């Protein structure tokens, strides 16, 4: 009994429900925000996202309904329906006055987020903990991020002595600054699933197969690394590209005919894809969301900064893999 309650509380689902509740508060506040020219559309957008967080995957919301709701969100955003409002922002003078009163204590709530995430990730490394609560290590860190957010809210309210309303309004300020970019990672993941179902990857692998002469080692290595990077750029995810390139190019053209150690070349192929991730807006959670999170003027600013690094390290992948096959 106790274990079933605790595993329900410690599940990813409960953290999703909490996030949904926060989003519903944002939606309600947006509805009352007369400074927002599209307050109905904006409120509806966040309310739908909230509903998907709370009910998604349950029997109350089969996937086809979620799919149609996602379509509705895209239509709202596509017609310019998601806008920012007014948030009673504090002035620099107020911030300075607050800062002298609260001082370094203000770090405590913010440090709680990584600390709780960390704590969960560490606590759920032993297998018996994972079995006891039915929570694997990957999910544990995410559950930790969720409860870290909740703990940080509580600590923040206590330290500042401010109202819940102000807390939520500040959350809404940051959320609206990002806007519909928030759902981009989830949308791109859906695009990836449809690409996979349509077998776009097999098409790319067979294309490479046709072009590359099988007797030139350097060209084979180049094709593997290039294919991996390009496919990652399209999918926005090296983990989605790796199985396709490994089965379609790496193993049949390099590992099998040349008798190369699969471990040696496989991991280099994977990180050749990571170099692609650094260059693509399709990897929105790594490149576009951070730019929005930091209110950058240029949404491609992170990618532009990463480009020289990514191109250099990709080139080194090609050279390293070629050398390793030659030497070992």
């Amino acid at each position, binding site marked *: 009994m106790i274990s079933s309650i605790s595993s329900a509380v410690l599940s990813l689902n409960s953290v999703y429900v909490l996030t949904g509740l926060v989003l519903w508060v944002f939606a309600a506040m947006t509805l009352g925000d007369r400074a927002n020219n599209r307050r109905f559309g904006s409120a509806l957008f966040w309310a739908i996202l909230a509903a998907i967080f709370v009910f*998604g995957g349950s029997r109350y919301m089969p996937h086809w309904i979620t799919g149609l709701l996602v379509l509705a969100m895209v239509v709202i955003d*596509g017609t310019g329906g998601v806008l920012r409002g007014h948030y009673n922002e504090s002035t620099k003078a107020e911030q300075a006055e*607050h800062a002298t009163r609260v001082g370094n204590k203000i770090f405590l709530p913010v440090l709680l987020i990584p600390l709780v995430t960390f704590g969960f990730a560490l606590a759920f490394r032993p297998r018996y903990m994972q079995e006891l609560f039915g929570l694997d290590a990957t999910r544990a860190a995410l559950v930790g991020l969720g409860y870290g957010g909740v703990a940080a809210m509580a600590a923040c309210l206590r330290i500042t002595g401010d109202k819940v309303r102000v807390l939520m309004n500040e*959350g809404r300020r940051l959320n609206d600054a990002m806007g519909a970019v928030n759902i981009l990672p989830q949308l791109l*993941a859906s695009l990836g699933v*449809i690409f996979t179902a349509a077998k776009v990857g097999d098409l790319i692998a067979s294309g490479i197969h046709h072009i590359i002469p099988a007797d030139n080692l350097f060209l084979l290595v180049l094709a593997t690394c290039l294919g991996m990077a390009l496919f990652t750029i399209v999918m926005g995810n090296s983990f989605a590209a*790796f199985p396709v390139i490994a089965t379609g190019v790496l193993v049949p053209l390099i590992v099998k005919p040349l008798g190369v150690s699969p471990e040696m070349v496989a991991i280099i192929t994977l990180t050749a894809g990571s170099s692609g991730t650094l260059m693509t807006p399709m990897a929105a959670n790594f490149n576009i969301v951070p730019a929005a999170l930091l209110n*950058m003027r240029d949404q491609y600013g992170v990618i532009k900064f990463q480009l020289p690094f990514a191109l250099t390290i990709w080139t080194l992948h090609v050279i390293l893999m070629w050398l390793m096959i030659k030497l070992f």
Partner: protein
Amino acid sequence: MHAADLLKLSGIVIVIIGLALRLRTTLVVMTAALVTGLAAGLPLFSSEGIFEALPFLTKPDQEGIINMLGRAFTDNRLMTLFIITLPAIGLAERYGLQEQAATLIRRIAAATVGRLNIVYQLFRVLTGILGIRLNGHPSFVRPLIFPMSVGAAEGELKARTAEELPEDIVEEIKAANSASENYGNFYGQNLSPVQPGILLVFGVLSGLGYVVSVWTLVFYAIPIAAISMILGMIQFWLLDRKYQNKMAGR
């Protein structure tokens, strides 16, 4: 290649053109998904529930595009979980979080933008080795690393407040902070056998009939991880040098 196959690639073309023209990204991605699915002959809905055996909209035993969309969107809610951290970060910012972090760093004379980014990248490699997965952009970069870097830049560029810093330098700092997280995360995580990258390679190779060891995979991940750290150090060190030259040239 058949014409039908080429049609499937139209989704990729839509994405490239849409993003190049800076059309609304959500709309571009959704259009690409629908076009690719339809070009591949996938049905719109699965043949189940109220759609059971419906002509045109469904095909027997095939998952519908709308169903896939809903399933993937639901399964990937974890990517948007960071929203729950926003209220606390927002309120802390209202109470001077960024200013306080900057003040703290200004007291450390050795702190520079470049060195901070190098230390953060190494920290992310370390968490990777420990098998810890973090969502570093919302939990570390926005609330802590960015304001600390701004504080360091104020010291480096002899600015009294963050407002005195040139805007393009602040933008560059934001990009560098985000990049430092990505560099450390992407190449550091493969140094642990419990991280998803190693497990994926292990799984795919096993599926292809190769018996491999996760520790051997980790071993072969070392050279690239080392290269990533060196390249990161060079790029961030160049940033510092640029700021020093700026000061010298003034």
